[in-house]
C-alpha cells in the first residue's frame, strides 16, 4: 500500500521465538534478587543482626524471652501507629496527626466513661468513631480540596492536641479507677505468658494488624490501588483508579487504626493521660522509613515497618541496658538510624 510496507516486507519470515539471554544462577545472584524483590528483607536482616549483637554484648539479660517480648510491648503502640502511618506514606502522603488522634481517642474513651457515665463499650466505640472521623477529615482535605498532606495533618495535629487538652482539662484518669469500674478500657493490657515470654493483647493486636494489612496491600485491588496512587496519582487516575476514594479511605483507616492505638495505649499505661504520644508522629515515621518505605510513595512494604519499629526498640532497650545515658542513647540512635539505612542502601546497590 504505502512505502512503510517496503520495510515491513522484512517481517514476512520473522522468527517468533521469545528473546532470551543466558542467566547465571549463582547463589549470590539469587540472594541479591531476593533482597531486591522483597523490600522487607533488608530491615529484617538488620534486625536479626542487631539482636545478635546486643545478645552477644548483654547475654541473657537481653537475650531472654522476657526481654525480647518486652521489646514487642514497648514498640507495640508506635508500631500500631506506624501501620497507620505506612498506609498514608504509601500514598505519598504523611500523617503528622497520628499521635494526636491516638491520644484524643483514648481521652474520649476515658472521659466518656467517667465523666459522661457511658458504658465502656459505648465509650470505646465513640473513641474509635472520633478517630476515624478525624482521619476522614484529613482525607477529605487532601483528596477533595487537594491540600498537601503535610499541611493538613500539621494543622490537624495542633487542632486535635489542643482539643485533647481542652476537653480533658489536663486530667489523668487513674489506673485504679479504670480497673475498678471499666476494665474494658484496659483490655489490650491483659496478657498471656508462655514461659518467660509475655504477650499482651496489645502486642497480639499489633502483629495481627500488620499481617492483615500486609495481606490487604498485596492481595486485594484496594491495596494495589494504594500503591498506584502513591506511585503516580495522575497515571493512576487516568488508568481508572478512583484516587479520591482511595485517599479518603486510607486517611480514615489511618484514623481508625490510631484510635485503636489509643485504646491499646490505655492498656499499656493503665491510665488515660492526655500528655501521651507527643512523639508518636516522629517515631512512627522513623519506623516506616527505617523499614524501607519510600517517603515519595508507592514503594515499600508494611512488614518492613514492623521490622523498622523493632529495630528502634532493640536499639533503645539494648543501649539502655548497656547503661548508656539518655543523651548518649539518642546520639547512638541517631547514628544507627543513618547506619541502618546506609546498610539497606548498600545491599540494594549490590543487588541492583
Amino acid at each position, binding site marked *: 500500500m504505502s512505502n512503510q510496507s517496503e520495510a515491513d516486507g522484512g517481517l514476512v519470515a520473522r522468527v517468533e521465538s521469545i528473546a532470551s539471554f543466558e542467566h547465571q544462577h549463582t547463589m549470590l545472584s539469587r540472594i541479591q534478587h531476593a533482597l531486591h524483590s522483597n523490600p522487607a528483607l533488608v530491615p529484617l536482616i538488620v534486625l536479626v543482626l542487631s539482636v545478635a549483637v546486643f545478645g552477644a554484648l548483654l547475654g541473657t*539479660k537481653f537475650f531472654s524471652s522476657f526481654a525480647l517480648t518486652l521489646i514487642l510491648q514497648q514498640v507495640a503502640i508506635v508500631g500500631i501507629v506506624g501501620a497507620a502511618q505506612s498506609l498514608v506514606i504509601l500514598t505519598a502522603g504523611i500523617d503528622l496527626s497520628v499521635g494526636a488522634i491516638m491520644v484524643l481517642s483514648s481521652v474520649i474513651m476515658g472521659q466518656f466513661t467517667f465523666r459522661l457515665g457511658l458504658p465502656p463499650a459505648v465509650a470505646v466505640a465513640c473513641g474509635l468513631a472520633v478517630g476515624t472521623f478525624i482521619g476522614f477529615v484529613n482525607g477529605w482535605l487532601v483528596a477533595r480540596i487537594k491540600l498537601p498532606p503535610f499541611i493538613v495533618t500539621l494543622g490537624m495535629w495542633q487542632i486535635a492536641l489542643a482539643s485533647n487538652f481542652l476537653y480533658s482539662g489536663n486530667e489523668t484518669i487513674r489506673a485504679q479507677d479504670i480497673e475498678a469500674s471499666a476494665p474494658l478500657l484496659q483490655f489490650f493490657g491483659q496478657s498471656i505468658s508462655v514461659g518467660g515470654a509475655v504477650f499482651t493483647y496489645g502486642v497480639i493486636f499489633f502483629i495481627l494488624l500488620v499481617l492483615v494489612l500486609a495481606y490487604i496491600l498485596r492481595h486485594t485491588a484496594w491495596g494495589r490501588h494504594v500503591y498506584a496512587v502513591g506511585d503516580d496519582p495522575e497515571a493512576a487516575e487516568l488508568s481508572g483508579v478512583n484516587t479520591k476514594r482511595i485517599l479518603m479511605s486510607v486517611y480514615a483507616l489511618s484514623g481508625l487504626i490510631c484510635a485503636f492505638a489509643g485504646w491499646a495505649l490505655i492498656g499499656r*499505661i493503665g491510665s488515660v*493521660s492526655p500528655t501521651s504520644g507527643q512523639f508518636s508522629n516522629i517515631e512512627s515515621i522513623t519506623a516506616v522509613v527505617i523499614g524501607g518505605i519510600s517517603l515519595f510513595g508507592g514503594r515499600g512494604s508494611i512488614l518492613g515497618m514492623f521490622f523498622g519499629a523493632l529495630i528502634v526498640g532493640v536499639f533503645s532497650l539494648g543501649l539502655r541496658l548497656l547503661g548508656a545515658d539518655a543523651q548518649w542513647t539518642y546520639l547512638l540512635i541517631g547514628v544507627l538510624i543513618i547506619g541502618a539505612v546506609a546498610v539497606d542502601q548498600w545491599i540494594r546497590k549490590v543487588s541492583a
Partner: protein
Amino acid sequence: QEVSACLITKTDTNPFFVKMKEGAEAKAAELGITLKSFAGRIDGDHETQVAAIETCIADGASGILLTASDTSAIVQAVQQARDAGLLVIALDTPLNPIDAADATFATDNFLAGELIGKWAAGKLGAEAANARIALLNLGISQPTVDVLRNQGFLQGFGIDLADPNKWGDETDPRIVGHDVTAGNEEGGREAMENLLVKDPSINVVHTINEPSAAGAYEALKSFGRENDVLIVSVDGGCPGVANVKDGVIGATSQQYPLQMAALGVEAIKAWADNGTKPEPTPGKDFFDTGVSLVTDEPVEGVESIDTAEGEALCWG
C-alpha cells in the same frame, strides 16, 4: 552482690534534673552503687519513663528514683516495679496517689509558688490590689509542676484559684493573661512580648522557671520596662540566683535537687542491704527536702534568705 539503681527524670535537659543526676551519681560512687540514668524527652513524656522502668526491671536493679512526668499515668508501671521487688522513690514530684511510691523526697512545689506569690504581694503592698499580672507557664499540656507552681503563686498573691488542678480558669481581673514558654529563654521572651502588647501595664510576672524568667527580662528590656516590673520565679539554680542578685529576678524559690538525689540513693542502698524503707517527714506524707525564698529585698511576713546564702546552696 552488686547493687544497682536507676534514676528516671522528666528530662535530662533541664539543669534541675542535670544537677539531680550529678548528686545521685556522686552519692552512688561514694556508696559503691551502679547508677543508670534515664529521662523522658520533654516534660509530659511519660511513655519513655514507662519504658525506662521496664528496663530497670529487666536489668535487675534494686530501686528506682523517679520524677514522674505524669503522676497518675506512671502508677501502673511503678506498681509493676514494686511487685518485682524494687524500691521506688518519687523525687521532687509526689505520685498520685502519693503512696503509690514507697517513699517521696520532694520539694513542695505549691509551697514554692506560694512563697513567691506572697513575696510579690508583700512587695507591692497596697498596690497589690491593682496589680497587672502576667503568668508564664510551661506548656499547654499543663504538667503537674506547672499547675502547682502557678496555683501556689496565685494563692500566695491572694487570688481565687477556681479549680486548683489547672491553670487558666481564674477570673480575677488583675490577671492579664497566661502564655506558655516551654521553660526556656526563647519561649519566655516571646510569651512576654505577646502579653506586653496585649497589655503594656503589666507589673508582675510569674515565670515557671529561671530560664523563662531570663527570656521575659529580655523582652521587658526591649520594651524599656525592665526596671518597673517584678519578676518572680522558681528553681534556685546558680544562674537564677545570680539573676536575683543582678536584679533581673525579684525573688525565686530555691529547691534542693542534690539533696533529694543523695537521700534517694542512700535509701536504695539501705533497702538493698537490709530491707528498710525511709520514713516521711513527721506530720507530712512525704519527706520534705525543703524550699526557701531567695531575695535581696525581703518583705515582712515572708521568710527568706539573701543571695549570698542562696549562692552557697545553689545547684548549677
